[in-house]
């Protein structure tokens, strides 16, 4: 146990206390933050902040004003200047005092026709704010609950007849987040698996392996390495989720769709049940490939044979999203290598029957056990094989040697 822990700790330290790892882990959130800041700054700096004029011939806008904005937005807040007539508004527009003006004629309520005059480009967000202000005033005489409903709009829950698929029109963030979380975790599993692959090949390349195997048993070595690999992945996951959670708590009050995000406990449980065996499978297969190959490049090429099917369901995202219980989604769920991504994706769009999940997860656990066994065989057969890559047949014949 002590030696397993030593291998685990060495494996963990070798990857985590490295500039490359720290840079990689921090660079992704930093990059996202920089892109967001640049985008917000870009919007903020290029926006025309001048007021908008209006000629309100029937006094539609005289009753209410827009409430102060609570959500954060890089868009400027609408500032209005009333004008007596169109001539005065035109003069102001030509002089650059305003960026555009509206004309609301007395017949507006009957015809719905108004006029918007601008010189260069018109900001759609200001139009949205102006329309809201107009509706706020037009519904003023109505009962408050009806006025409020008209202002806030409707929210239909779209559901299939058997109730297995259900979504709210507005809460689209709840669909994107599980989808993105699944992707993020898979990327981490692959990256951490890549580290393990590299470590095993390096140990063979620099010939450390011969000393190691005369000090610890293959089982101690493999267990320590795989646990170390999982710990590296979890560290990466924690850092990234830490940033995401920080970002979430920072903006949830000011960005509406972020505030609406809710991740269900069921989804989290599913994620854990899918991620753990997948993590073990990937780590064990990476260790197996590292054992039978002699060069990192060759090992990476071979690892593509199983990393490809793991990520492949993303190619069929549209089909899985639109038909999460369709034949393709089911087939991909039953095939253990494509199951992790498919299941995490489907769970965002449908209620997967428990019996299906049980079978799918049992398959994943079985695959993880099989991969560990294979890794042990491959390691015993290939650990001292410096010259050439072993074939599958040789793994089994040599492992018994």
């Amino acid at each position, binding site marked *: 146990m002590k030696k397993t822990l030593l291998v685990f700790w060495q494996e963990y330290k*070798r990857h985590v206390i490295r500039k490359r790892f720290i840079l990689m882990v921090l660079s992704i959130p930093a990059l996202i933050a920089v892109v967001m800041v640049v985008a917000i700054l870009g919007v903020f700096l290029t926006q025309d902040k001048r007021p908008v004029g209006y000629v309100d011939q029937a006094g539609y806008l005289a009753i209410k004003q827009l409430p102060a904005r609570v959500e954060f937005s890089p868009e400027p807040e609408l500032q209005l200047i009333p004008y007596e007539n169109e001539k005065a508004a035109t003069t102001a527009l030509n002089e650059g005092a305003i960026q555009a003006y509206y004309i609301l004629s007395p017949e507006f309520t009957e015809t719905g026709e108004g006029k918007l005059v601008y010189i260069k480009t018109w900001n759609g967000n200001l139009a949205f704010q102006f329309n809201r202000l107009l509706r706020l005033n037009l519904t003023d005489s109505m009962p408050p609950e009806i006025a409020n409903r008209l202002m806030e709009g409707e929210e239909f829950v779209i559901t299939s007849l058997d109730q297995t698929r259900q979504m709210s029109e507005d809460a689209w963030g709840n669909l994107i987040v599980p989808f993105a979380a699944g992707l993020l975790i898979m990327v981490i599993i692959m990256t951490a698996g890549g580290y393990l692959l590299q470590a095993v090949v390096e*140990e063979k390349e620099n*010939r*450390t*392996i011969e000393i190691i195997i005369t000090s610890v048993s293959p089982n101690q070595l493999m267990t320590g390495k795989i646990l170390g690999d999982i710990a590296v992945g979890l560290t990466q996951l924690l850092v990234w989720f830490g940033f995401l959670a920080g970002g979430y708590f920072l903006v949830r009050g000011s960005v509406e769709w972020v505030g609406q995000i809710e991740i269900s406990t069921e989804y989290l449980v599913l994620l854990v049940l899918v991620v753990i065996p997948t993590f073990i499978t990937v780590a064990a297969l990476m260790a197996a490939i590292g054992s039978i190959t002699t060069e990192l490049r060759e090992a990476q090429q071979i690892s593509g044979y199983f990393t490809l099917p793991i990520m492949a369901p993303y190619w069929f995202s549209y089909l899985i999203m639109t038909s999460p219980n369709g034949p393709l989604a089911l087939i991909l769920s039953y095939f253990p290598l494509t199951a992790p991504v498919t299941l995490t994706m489907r769970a965002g769009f449908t209620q997967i029957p428990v019996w299906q999940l049980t079978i799918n997860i049992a398959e994943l656990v079985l695959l993880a056990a099989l991969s560990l066994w294979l890794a042990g065989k491959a390691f015993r057969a290939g650990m001292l094989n*410096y010259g050439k890559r072993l074939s599958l047949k040789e793994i089994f014949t040599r492992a018994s*040697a």
Partner: protein
Amino acid sequence: MQPIIVDHIQKNFVKTRAVDDVSFAVDNAEIFGLLGPNGAGKTTIIRIILDIFKPDKGTVSILDGPMNEAKKDRIGYLPEERGLYQDIPLDRCLSYLAGLKGLSSSETKLRLSKYLERFELTPHRSKKVKELSKGMQQKAQLIATLIHEPEVIIIDEPFSSLDPVNTQMVKDLLDEERHKGRAIVMCTHQMHQVEELCDRIVLIDRGRAMLYGTLEEVRSRYATQDILVNASAPLPHHIPGVDRIEDINTHKKLILKTGITAQSVLKELVQQNIPIEHFEIALPSLDEIFIRVVTEGTAKA
């Protein structure tokens, strides 16, 4: 109890017989030479002793029985294929390897400082292994082999990459280990080192043990009817029973006719009043024996 007993082991790889019916035993407090040309099967034998490979036939007893996990901590191994983690500092690398041999971290710290001092590596302890010279890495590898004070030491080519000063230091170290009672198996191609250090040897060729015994036994077995003589006066051109005389450095090598003994030649020289300073049976060097055994083996094959 002999710490290593190799009993009639055989090992095949696909179509090749790498080891064929090899037996030998290593005693405590001895340096045992495991010799043989490249590809003779030495490394395979070592790997069988260390339980990396299982023999197809025969048995190995190490430290009184088959290998187990606990015994790994009592064995020090310097493989032919050297290897240390290149990207981490030297002391971290050696501490990790010592830890894998069951050494506590406090004991590791203590012993590591002593060894680094002795091997003159203290100023380099915080450097990454890849920044060290080949010779320094070789010394570091020796530290990894010895730091846990193993009872059995198996070292493959311990002198490669070492300069004469460090070679002498390693020789002294091995001698110390022998005096502490350790059983040392040494593989090397450097026959003069074997002659200087080894108590007994086994010579492996094509997977078979060709010679086994003490150095004296082996050399006597290959001794010819030749005599090395050094005299303060010139030797006569004709000595009865002597076929011819050759110059070997400061000595004269007397090649005897068939059936003639060294004693009869000595008697003849004394009778002729030759002032003899040195008289010895010309034992062949280990190098000569090595070449002869291997060449004969090749010719037979």
